[in-house]
């Protein structure tokens, strides 16, 4: 294999590179496997990235030539939309608002859901099933079903159990609080699943070393569930960052009133005219923070976290 004989070599030359490859592939099926793997990778990259590529082409197109059709290259070339998006509206403020919502909600959800996930995943208690079902049932409802009472509550029109909360409308609280509740069931389920898979032996070891049960959760179980926690975090963050229903209705339309990024993006749309190039450019800009987050967080989704831990 490694040392082809002279005749083979001359053979190869006449048959060309493809059949050479086929030949060596037959001898070494790993090669075929590798090649197929890369084909699959490229396929997935193409399907996920192509629409984004095209979005970039729209952003780079000349604004009034978009409607002529944008192909693989921009219609006209006008990168100025990336500047214009900041001139028309304070896009950075919208970005900041969404970022604040997403960060606060993600932290809050991860903490509260971690406690609940620990209880559901690792403790035995009566009513576990029922409570878990209750959590699930909350996500059956269209968000609109929660909206009006919360809206009235946050605008101090009604009281909850006799209490009137501070006016949360048009503050981060008005978005973070409902979104926390809405994205909590998913996070609880994810964390429950992952926490329950950490072997008891490791928690036992931590407790013997002197942690409380809660300490074991934060020092051992959460670090070892990093893939699950990172996933729950990414999913929640992105969902909130792009959430439109509550963040739109619970805030004003202006960046100063805590309007979210999506509000910013759609304001490039006027009644009869849509600046696709601006919307595209703005959404590309808006995706950047998320992309950075994903780059960072995906490092946590690594394998083998529990290998070498236990003999069993």
């Amino acid at each position, binding site marked *: 294999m490694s040392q082809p004989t002279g005749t083979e070599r001359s053979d190869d030359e006449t048959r060309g590179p493809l059949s050479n490859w086929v030949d060596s592939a037959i001898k070494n099926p790993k090669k075929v496997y590798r090649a197929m793997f890369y084909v699959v*990778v490229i396929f*997935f*990259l193409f*399907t996920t990235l192509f*629409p984004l590529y095209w*979005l970039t082409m729209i952003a780079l197109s000349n604004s009034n030539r978009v*409607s002529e*059709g*944008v192909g693989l290259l921009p219609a006209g070339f006008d990168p100025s939309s990336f500047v214009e998006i900041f001139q028309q509206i304070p896009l950075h403020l919208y970005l900041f608002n969404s970022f604040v919502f997403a960060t606060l909600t993600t932290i809050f959800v991860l903490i*509260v859901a971690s*406690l*609940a996930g620990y*209880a*559901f995943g690792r403790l035995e*208690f*009566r009513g*576990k*099933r029922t*409570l*878990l079902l*209750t959590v*699930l049932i909350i*996500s*059956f409802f*269209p968000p609109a*079903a*929660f909206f*009006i*009472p919360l809206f009235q509550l946050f605008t101090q029109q009604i009281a909850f159990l006799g209490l009137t909360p501070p006016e949360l409308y048009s503050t981060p609280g008005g978005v973070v609080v409902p979104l926390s509740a809405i994205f909590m*069931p998913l996070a*609880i389920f*994810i964390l429950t*699943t*992952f926490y*329950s*898979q950490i072997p008891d032996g490791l928690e036992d070891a931590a407790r013997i070393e002197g942690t*409380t049960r809660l*300490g074991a959760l934060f020092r051992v179980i959460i670090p070892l*569930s990093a*893939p*699950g926690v990172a*996933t729950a975090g*990414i*999913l929640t963050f*992105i969902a909130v960052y792009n959430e*439109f229903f509550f963040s739109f209705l619970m805030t004003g339309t202006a960046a100063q009133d805590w309007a979210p*990024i999506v509000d910013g*993006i*759609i304001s490039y749309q006027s009644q009869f005219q849509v600046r696709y190039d601006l919307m595209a450019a703005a*959404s590309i800009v*808006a*995706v950047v923070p998320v992309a950075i987050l*994903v780059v960072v967080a995906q*490092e946590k*989704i690594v*394998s*083998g*976290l*529990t*290998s070498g831990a236990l003999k069993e």
Partner: protein
Amino acid sequence: MATEQRQQQQGWNPVSRVLNWMEQLSEEAYAYLLLAPAFLVLFTIALWPLWRTFRVSLFADNLFGAAKTGEFVGLQNYIEVLTNQNPLLSRPLIDLTGGTPFFRQALLVTLAFAVISVVFETLIGFGQAYIMSKEYRGRRWVRVAIILPWAIPIVIQGMLFFLLFNPSVGFLSDPLQAIGLFGSNPLTSSTNAFVIVTVADIWKTSAFMALLILAGMQSIDKSLYDVAEVAGASPWQRFRHITLPLIFPALMVAMLFRTIDAMRIYGIIEASGAGCGTVPSLSCLVVDTMFGVTQAYASAATIAFITASIIALVIGGYLVVLKLSPEGSYQ
């Protein structure tokens, strides 16, 4: 001994006193304590509003005055909606007469969408998770690339697919028309628009599946694969006997929540330009009814609860068919 003293000193600190108190609790009491914050949030922010919304659904709509609801009518709203007698609904919810074409009935559209999108997203999610889990140069970028669609706001996702299938801007509808798959106005034909909406959703949300499946895969102890390999398992058998059962809980969570989400589909329908008129879904009915200037709150609340019940039926079926308890294979 030093350790001992330290522990005693800790005993005076109020924080650790609380922690100590928690530590003494029985497992059950401790579980309830840990669940308290979550349920406090869920109760105030979710259950309580639901209760209020439910109450609204028991009253009549009032469209012509300052008050939004009229007299108490009990379950009348539910009966009217379920028998298609509520004129405020733009689409039949359930049309048993068969008179309305398939893709114009909210329930059927919703179910079809849920089934198709969840099936495809699961399959694609598996594929994506697989390539994200392998080690090779540039893996981190592949991961980012695959997750990116999930990071696209729904408005942009909608715009993107609207434009891609827009006969004048994009270039996808021409070839599809040429081979006869699409009509000339894909976004106004319910069937075509349904396909577009579904494709758009699969494009975006496969990443959701992929991420959860990937996380599940990464939590598997590698030595189990060694054992399986030595036992003679082929790659498929390793997948079948180790990967699949061990990611099953994570997969279930992913599928469960995707199904729920798919059955609440709304945003992409509006954003892609197809519109609730072309591809009506259950959530479309809720939002249209609740937030139009008509402000038919009672009808909207009714539909919201009916939607939730339908989802509950489907998810219940899930749990029964897959013989899952909600806590699944968590033991």
